[in-house]
């Protein structure tokens, strides 16, 4: 059975997009930060959050292939829908990076090349920056020895090489998996099994790339906003946030589809399993969030602890609120078996955590890029969030209409239909 996009869903998606654009325009007019930094930062927050959902879905899809998991075969198309957002979800991110490279925004402080050289010849805009004390050179007041030490990694050309490598890999694999999945619908017998094994191998390959890229992209795109600071747990922390946001989106999407009468074979057992994933990955996220905080709090080294001092002193509601919503809420509310099998309850808790992880991305990006100009979640942030949400919903639902919502042929389809826990 094919999914048809109802008039109402289309109306809501477009309504959200229009609302988002309107709020963004009003927000930009009221954005008095230097270089409209707030607008750029909000673009990064929302671009990254929704890109992360697509990426988490792609990761989970590949994980299911690589582990040859049977129960989730019924839900394959749902994840394909979610990761279809990747095919152009990269655009807002690249816009922010282009803006940074051209010095239209200063989210990435390290993109300023004057930081890297100890000496300068001349003054103002005509200044030439040099590393040696040549004739007529004076000490460069902007020189930052910490940043100069990171120059081998944090420089604009290498940043772009890495960014293009990640995005090309993700977009390529997203397209390839989708094509393979549609191809499987047309095959039976030996060729079907062969294609499943091919998917199995390619998924394992993708996971290797993903393991490296998901860590490094979080350093490049997010951690380098606070370029003096570093945390070895940051990659995992960002990744677990992406993953749990993707699982929440999947739960909400599956429940929406079921309510509309689609996916009749998806039983309480499948919903229960998705709920378990949300519960488990919430714990993974909390574990990493707390480990990162606790180690830095405990050792209390000045160059590390500034990151959290800024957040605890200036934005405590963001720092602790995020942790409370994303840890305590799923722990208390999703612990029991009945809660994970109750659609209304799952949607309620899921929406809360979904917002909580958006707040988490806010906390990663905003204090570093806006400094003391960051006064909390404002119209611009929420407006852009709604706009992106509409865009995301429309892309995902539109992809779902393109193919049968239930895979036609899969060696594990029967096992998935009879999944019972």
């Amino acid at each position, binding site marked *: 059975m094919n999914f048809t996009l109802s008039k109402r869903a289309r109306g809501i998606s477009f309504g959200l997009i229009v609302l988002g654009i309107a709020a963004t325009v009003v927000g930009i007019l009221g954005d008095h930060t230097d270089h409209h930094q707030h607008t750029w930062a909000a673009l990064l927050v929302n671009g990254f959050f929704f890109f992360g959902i697509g990426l988490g879905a792609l990761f989970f899809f590949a994980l299911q292939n690589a582990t040859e998991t049977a129960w989730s075969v019924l839900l394959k198309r749902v994840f394909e829908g979610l990761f279809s957002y990747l095919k152009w979800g990269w655009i807002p991110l690249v816009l922010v990076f282009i803006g940074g490279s051209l010095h239209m925004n200063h989210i990435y402080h390290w993109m300023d090349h004057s930081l890297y050289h100890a000496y300068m010849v001349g003054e103002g805009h005509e200044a030439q920056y040099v590393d040696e004390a040549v004739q007529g050179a004076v000490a460069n007041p902007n020189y930052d020895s910490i940043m100069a030490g990171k120059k081998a990694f944090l420089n604009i050309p290498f940043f772009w090489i890495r960014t293009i490598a990640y995005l090309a890999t993700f977009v390529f694999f997203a397209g390839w998996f989708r094509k393979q999945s549609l191809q499987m619908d047309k095959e039976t017998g030996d060729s079907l099994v062969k294609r499943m094994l091919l998917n199995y191998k390619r998924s394992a390959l993708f996971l290797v790339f993903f393991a490296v890229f998901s860590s490094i992209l979080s350093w490049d795109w997010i951690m380098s906003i606070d370029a003096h600071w570093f945390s070895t747990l940051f990659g995992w922390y960002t990744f677990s946030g992406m993953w749990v946001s993707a699982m929440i989106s999947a739960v909400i999407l599956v429940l929406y589809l079921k309510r509309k009468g689609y996916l009749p074979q998806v039983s309480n057992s499948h919903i229960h399993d998705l709920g378990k994933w949300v519960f488990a990955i919430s714990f993974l996220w909390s574990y990493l969030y*707390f480990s990162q*905080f*606790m180690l830095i*709090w*405990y*050792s*209390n080294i000045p160059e590390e602890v500034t990151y959290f001092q800024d957040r605890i002193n200036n934005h405590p509601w963001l720092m602790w609120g995020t942790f409370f919503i994303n840890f305590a809420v799923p722990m208390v509310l999703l*612990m*029991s*078996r009945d809660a994970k099998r109750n659609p209304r309850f799952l949607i309620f808790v899921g929406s809360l955590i979904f917002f909580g992880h958006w707040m988490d991305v806010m906390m990663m990006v905003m204090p570093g890029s806006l400094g003391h100009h960051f006064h909390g979640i404002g119209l611009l942030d929420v407006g852009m969030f709604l706009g992106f949400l509409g865009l995301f919903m429309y892309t995902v639902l539109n992809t779902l209409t393109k193919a049968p919502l239930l895979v036609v042929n899969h060696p594990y389809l029967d096992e998935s239909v009879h999944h*019972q*826990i």
Partner: protein
Amino acid sequence: MANTVIYAVYEDPEQLKDGARKLVSNGIKVKDTWSPFPIHGIDPIIGVTRTRLAIASFMFGITGTCLAVLGMWYMNIFDWPMNIGGKPSQALYKNFPAFVPVMFEFTVFCAAHGMSITYLIRNKTLPGMPARNPDPRSTDDKFIIEVRTADNHGHSTEAITSLLRTTPVFEINERQY
């Protein structure tokens, strides 16, 4: 009349499930099933009440958390105030992050051990306890349904066995007890 217990031996868990379904749909109460591994989906068929092991596990976990907090408060705050990470704050809430890993570990420790021991006691399978399964083959490759006539007064032994014969049963054993 002596009570009879009937053991219907199957070679496949799916066949056992079909057999159990047939018995239950004819109003016969299945006492228990014996198998080398857990059979998914048998509980609702033979009407096993939901396990309360999860609740027990939660209680054990909470006990662990409380004991850990109490212990650390007594040792590191009350009895001998400790300087934690250069923070001699001497208050439980101020040093709390440092205590969380221990709380977490002790919660897991108590929940896991408590749950395992409860499970073994409840199933009467603590080390050294005599085996209670009726047929040693149920630990190898046979799947057995146990029906007691004492639970099924409306059905004769013959009626139950003849009903079982219509299912793909491997053998049927009867025993008096």
